[in-house]
């Protein structure tokens, strides 16, 4: 309060809405309610769900989806889709593994080359979308098929099988493993490094969105790109950057998968792009862009983790997983919608 000699008089018109309304108006609130309900549901029905070990296994499962989902969430807030985000995870791992195996070089070099390659794919996705004006849904659908085919085709050419060679004897395997797929134990509980990475990425994304200039731009290019451009926001750069963030996070998870299992199936990752999008939407991200936040996307991924493992803990036939997941997600979206409607109604008064 620096300048206020003349201010007190017209204050009457301006009010700060009560805390309850402000909380209800947050994008992630619907997902949070849904997550709590699902959590209690499995606590009641699945006895083995009720331990710290299984909680951290759920967190691990969530982190593998959640890391890329955060990027996809940012991209969706920025008004675009990336359907190639699922297979690029495997492209990253396969490229690293086969390059180093074929030429017999240090895995670190392969990891960096794979990173450069993934960033290039992200850049191309963004560049093509911005340059041609074709919806990102179509452009990245194209990239998705290209990568899916190339993953299988190149792997078959190099290894004569459909999985990448075992790389655990190549130099750099141990140090890369420490970075991307380490775990440690606290008592009986195994905590995977990827969970910590996930939390870090979520925190970074949340900070960027709410508290930085770039975050402001992401909301603006998703909400109204023409208007953003007119006030000087670099729309093209922002959107291309978002595509590259997604491909970077895809690469990161690809590294995790590769150094955890030391070999990858060339056909993997297909279908995961929808899990990312679902996590983002359940987390309150608007499908049309301009609205959402990183915490919500993280909760969305957590709901996925709970559901996929909860079924197993409950001892049900895992074949039901997809159907059950679908129901859970529909419910989550409905709760989301209901809460959103409640909150906007109250705010209209």
């Amino acid at each position: 309060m620096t300048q206020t000699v003349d201010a007190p008089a017209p204050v009457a018109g301006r009010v700060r809405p009560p805390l309850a309304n402000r909380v209800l108006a947050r994008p992630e609130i619907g997902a949070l309610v849904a997550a709590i309900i699902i959590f209690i549901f499995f606590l009641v029905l699945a006895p083995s769900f009720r331990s710290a070990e299984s909680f951290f296994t759920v967190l691990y499962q969530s982190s593998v989806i959640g890391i890329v989902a955060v990027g996809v969430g940012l991209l969706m807030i920025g008004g675009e889709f990336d359907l190639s985000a699922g297979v690029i995870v495997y492209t990253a791992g396969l490229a690293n593994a086969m390059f180093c195996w074929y030429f017999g070089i240090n895995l670190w070099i392969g990891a960096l080359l794979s990173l450069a390659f993934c960033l290039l794919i992200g850049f191309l996705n963004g560049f093509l979308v911005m340059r041609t004006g074709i919806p990102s849904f179509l452009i990245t659908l194209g990239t998705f098929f290209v990568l899916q085919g190339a993953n299988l085709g190149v792997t078959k050419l190099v290894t004569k099988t459909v999985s990448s060679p075992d790389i655990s004897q190549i130099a750099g395997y141990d140090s890369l493993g420490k970075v991307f797929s380490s775990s440690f134990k606290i008592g009986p509980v195994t905590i995977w490094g990827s969970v910590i990475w996930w939390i870090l990425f979520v925190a970074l994304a949340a900070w960027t969105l709410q508290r930085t200039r770039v975050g402001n731009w992401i909301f603006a290019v998703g909400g109204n790109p023409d208007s953003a451009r007119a006030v000087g926001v670099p729309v093209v750069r922002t959107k291309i950057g978002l595509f590259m963030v997604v491909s970077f996070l895809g690469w990161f998870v690809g590294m995790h998968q590769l150094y955890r299992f030391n070999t990858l199936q060339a056909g993997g990752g297909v279908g995961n792009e929808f899990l990312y999008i679902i996590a983002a939407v359940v987390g309150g991200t608007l499908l049309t862009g301009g609205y959402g936040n990183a915490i919500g996307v993280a909760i969305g991924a957590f709901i996925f983790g709970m559901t996929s493992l909860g079924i197993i803990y409950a001892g049900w036939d895992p074949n039901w997983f997809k159907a059950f997941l679908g129901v859970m997600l529909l419910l989550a979206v409905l709760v989301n919608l209901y809460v959103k409607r409640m909150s906007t109604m109250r705010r209209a008064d």
Partner: protein
Amino acid sequence: MTDTLAEHADSHLQKGEPLIEMADVGKSYGAIRALRGINLLVNAGEVTCVLGDNGAGKSTLIKIMSGLHPHNEGVVKVDGSPVTFGSPREALGHGIATVYQDLAVVGLMEVWRNFFLGSELTAGKYPLAGLKVKEMREIADTELRKMGIVVKDINQPIGTLSGGQRQCVAIARAVYFGARVLILDEPTAALGVKQSGVVLKYVAAARDAGLGVVFITHNPHHAYMVGDHFVILKLGRTALDKTRNEVGLDELTTQMAGGDELTELSHELGRQ
């Protein structure tokens, strides 16, 4: 509120000093010539009204001035030196700000975020530098209040404001960030009588503060209330170019309604 506008306006602006000069400017999109032979002068402290029917070339003219599309014939001078803008950012750098009718603001974003969009206050230059949220909220709040725009809550999405208020926030923002030329694209087109009045008051206030205003409209009544200089475009060419002393509201209205074409048409239709 006039005082506040004057407070932020560039104090070096001399009334009548030419800010933008366009000489024989034209623009083609491929084989289509959208605009040709346009001579236009935007002076400080004056409102230049650009009128015209749909497809007359008004929006092309704005796009050239605001940096969305570069012109490809003639010369555009800003402050006496020729320019060709590659992006809206460059135009903004020269103090030329544009407020568009339907895309002035990002509806889902908070009022204060909109106010500072593209000119955010940050704690440093590095990419993850924190926004000075509290400061930005306070400035947006104080500025809007001083300019007589009553917003219930500075954190509400700007889409919840009325159309007139949104236009006013956009104008206030442009002036606050040091615009010297204000281009208003049909600011009153979608508004009711009362809200149009509010916007027109801001147009007049910006003019009195010494800014050069380009007011694009197809409503001659609104134009005549604030305009100093009138240009009517027809099929990409200038159909009328007169100052306030040389033209009356009747002539403007007739010209806008179709002018000679209309007379011809009524002959053809033959009803007395």
